[in-house]
């Protein structure tokens, strides 16, 4: 199989070896190609396409044709099939007969007919290509035969595809009763009567709908891309349209230089006459439906099918390439045309929402100081601490990670201040390794805190279970003693305050250790805002004696202690919440009418 590209003799561009029409100019690469059933028409069409045989065929083909040797053909194709051998015999016989008989017909026609008889399916093309390759260094004969055989098969497939695209080529045109006049002719006659335009006489004219509908169908779009001359409106009568008109197809004169494009602005009458000739040769008779006329006209043109096929293949290849590139990626929202009005409306809406958010903060309309009363759980916490005295001791559990230490330090600061005021002895214990230095950070905030020891409880959940054993096994209730690794410590406690930022951490303390602590001791918890809700059932069921959760409750706790709270912290906290609300609201507004990601359109809970 040869990889050589075919060079179009008209425009000089490269084409696929199997192409019969140039992709760029649309003109046939081989003038002698004939489709079954259109042989006569193609002969007459070629008369219009090609003025002079010598001028139409490029020099290369001409030389090759002259040098064609029938014996060479017989030897080369003897292996292919028995039918080909008989065809070769027929070809030889015909060659003899043809040479003797006809001298009146032009040379080029003789050759075409000769070749049409000899060639079966695509063998003619194959011969041509074989001849064309004579000038090219050829590989060894067996491989050459193999490559030619493959070419032959390829050509067969191409023809089969072409045949499938043109199903009605062989159907004879049914004559329409002469009595019926087509609507376009009627219109023309009406126009004649009104005297707006000169008489059309017997000339067949294409009505204006042809001009309007010229680019309405996909095939016409393809034609528009490749054959602009075909989409130009056909004007058979002068003054019918202001657009430049051209007859389709055959009016593009192929000059010796090989220019492919028709020259617009030709004489309309001459174009009309040529079209008449074409229509007559094609066999269209008046009375055919307008649309059917155009469709049939398109079908009769062999070049359309090739171009369609090639371009559809190209489009499919492009689609496949896009699919392969986008594989594995999430769907991308298609770009929607942006309406300028909607953009302005959205901008106004955004400014409105932002002003609602920013204005209260800037003007101080909303008092950043938190007012109100503490929740019952916070009140219980406050009272529990208030009941402690100087002889009591508190076990403070640090059970939060460093990332949330800022929030936890803010929330627990008033609690530590309260404990300090009560002059209660406190001991720190932590389940995180980082808790060792978090406790020092905790103690450094707020009122002066005396230095206290921080114990590390290893093992997380298992360590808590071990602690519960120590608690339950201790002879003195209210003492935590551990003999782990000889690190004995006895911690007396009258209250346990758990500082936690995660629900799981607090829950393990409540469920693993809580049942085994002394009944006189209270179990209190300081938690972050998001975990408050999950701990409330423990407070309701009396497993928890007090719960202080969130920055707001902590501020109220501070107020109850007659301490002043930092307004900037509250302000920034409220601003953050407002911005989050604004984000949600703006997101709702902008998403109205917007497309969602394709794979997420079905939301199945």
């Amino acid at each position, binding site marked *: 199989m040869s990889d050589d590209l075919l060079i179009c003799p008209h425009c000089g561009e490269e084409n696929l070896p199997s192409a019969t029409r140039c992709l760029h100019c649309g003109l046939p690469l081989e003038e002698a190609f004939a489709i079954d059933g259109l042989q006569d028409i193609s002969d007459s069409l070629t008369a219009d396409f090609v003025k002079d045989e010598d001028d139409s065929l490029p020099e290369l083909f001409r030389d090759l044709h002259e040098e064609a040797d029938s014996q060479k053909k017989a030897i080369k194709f003897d292996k292919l099939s028995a039918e080909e051998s008989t065809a070769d015999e027929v070809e030889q016989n015909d060659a003899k007969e043809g040479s003797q008989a006809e001298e009146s017909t032009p040379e080029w026609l003789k050759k075409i007919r000769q070749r049409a008889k000899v060639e079966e399916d695509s063998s003619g093309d194959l011969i041509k290509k074989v001849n064309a390759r004579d000038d090219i260094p050829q590989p060894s004969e067996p491989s050459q035969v193999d490559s030619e055989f493959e070419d032959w098969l390829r050509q067969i497939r191409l023809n089969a595809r072409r045949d499938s695209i043109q199903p009605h080529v062989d159907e004879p045109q049914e004559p329409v009763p002469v009595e019926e006049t087509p609507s376009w002719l009627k219109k023309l006659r009406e126009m004649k009567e009104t005297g707006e335009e000169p008489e059309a006489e017997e000339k067949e004219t294409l009505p204006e709908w042809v001009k309007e509908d010229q680019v309405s169908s996909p095939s016409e779009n393809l034609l528009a891309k490749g054959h602009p001359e075909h989409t130009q409106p056909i004007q058979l009568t002068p003054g019918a349209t202001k657009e430049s008109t051209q007859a389709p197809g055959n009016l593009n004169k192929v000059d010796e230089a090989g220019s492919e494009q028709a020259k617009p602005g030709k004489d309309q009458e001459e174009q009309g006459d040529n079209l008449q000739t074409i229509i007559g040769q094609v066999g269209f008779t008046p009375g055919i439906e307008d649309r059917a006329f155009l469709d049939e006209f398109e079908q009769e043109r062999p070049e359309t099918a090739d171009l369609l096929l090639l371009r559809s293949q190209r489009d499919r290849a492009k689609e496949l390439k896009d699919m392969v590139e986008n594989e594995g990626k999430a769907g991308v*929202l298609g770009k929607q045309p942006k309406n300028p009005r909607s953009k302005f409306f959205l901008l106004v809406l955004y400014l409105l929402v932002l002003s609602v958010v920013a204005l209260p903060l800037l003007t101080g309309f909303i*008092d950043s100081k*938190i*007012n*109100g*009363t503490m*929740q019952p759980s916070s009140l219980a916490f406050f009272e529990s601490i208030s009941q402690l005295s100087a002889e009591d001791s508190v076990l403070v559990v640090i059970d939060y*990670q*460093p*990332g*949330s*230490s*800022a929030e936890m330090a803010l929330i627990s600061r008033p609690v530590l201040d309260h404990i300090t005021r009560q002059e209660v002895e406190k001991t720190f214990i932590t389940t995180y390794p*980082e808790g*060792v*230095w*978090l406790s*020092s*950070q905790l103690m450094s905030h707020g009122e002066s805190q005396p230095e206290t020891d921080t114990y590390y409880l*290893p*093992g*997380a959940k*298992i*360590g808590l*279970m*071990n602690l519960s*054993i120590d608690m*339950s*096994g201790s002879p003195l209730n209210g003492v935590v003693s551990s003999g*782990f690794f000889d690190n004995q410590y006895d911690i007396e406690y009258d209250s346990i305050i758990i500082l936690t930022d995660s629900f799981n951490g607090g829950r393990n303390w409540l469920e693993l250790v809580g049942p085994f602590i002394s009944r006189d001791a209270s179990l209190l918890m300081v938690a972050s*805002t998001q975990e408050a*809700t*999950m701990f*409330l*059932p423990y407070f309701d069921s009396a497993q928890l004696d007090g719960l202080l959760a*969130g920055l*707001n409750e902590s501020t109220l706790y501070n107020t109850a202690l007659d301490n002043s709270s930092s307004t900037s912290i509250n302000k920034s906290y*409220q601003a*953050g*919440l*407002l*911005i*989050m*609300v604004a*984000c*949600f*609201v*703006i*997101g*709702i507004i*902008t*998403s109205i009418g*917007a497309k*969602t*990601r394709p794979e*997420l*359109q*079905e*939301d199945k*809970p």
Partner: protein
Amino acid sequence: MKRIVSIVIAITTGILVISAIIFRPQLNPILSLILRWGILIGSTAALVGIAILIKTHYQRIAVGKRGFFFSLIVVFGFGISFLGGMLLGVDNPGYQKWISSIQLPLEISFLGLLTLILATTGFRLYRLRSWSPLSISFGISAIVFLILAMGYLQALGDSRLDKIIEFIQRIPIAGGRGILIGMGLGALVIGIRVLIGVERPYGE
């Protein structure tokens, strides 16, 4: 044989722990012993995991894999922290201050980044999830609870409003508890599967 031994150990340990939790006063010493073994093994596993992590990063540096510079930073940071803790002691206030001054800003900024992502996610919620009853209820509940968290309504001091707010704030408890009960059931069944030897996460 190896497989049977591991299964026997797993089942025996599980039964012992459950028995000891249930029959506490009598089996406390056994339970304490098993739990301390568990703490030791867990801590050792953590040390082994850290060693494998350092080894993996070291291999990336040695091979020159793409991004090995970050592995270099990991190994260097680990080395400095480890040596500092060994030499100065974990209780050293200077060492603690030094570690916390690096770790705290890093982790706090990470959580701040999380907040920004949550804000953008809230903005894109309906573009990503389309309009469905679940997503609509999600959005509405988020907005309501954000407004309640601001404290403006509580600051009005209306007792009836406070009761309504308290009621609204307790609504998520039911859903959360339901999920937790389901999770607990799942964990219970998995535990029973481990006890009867069907589930063998320690091997094939």
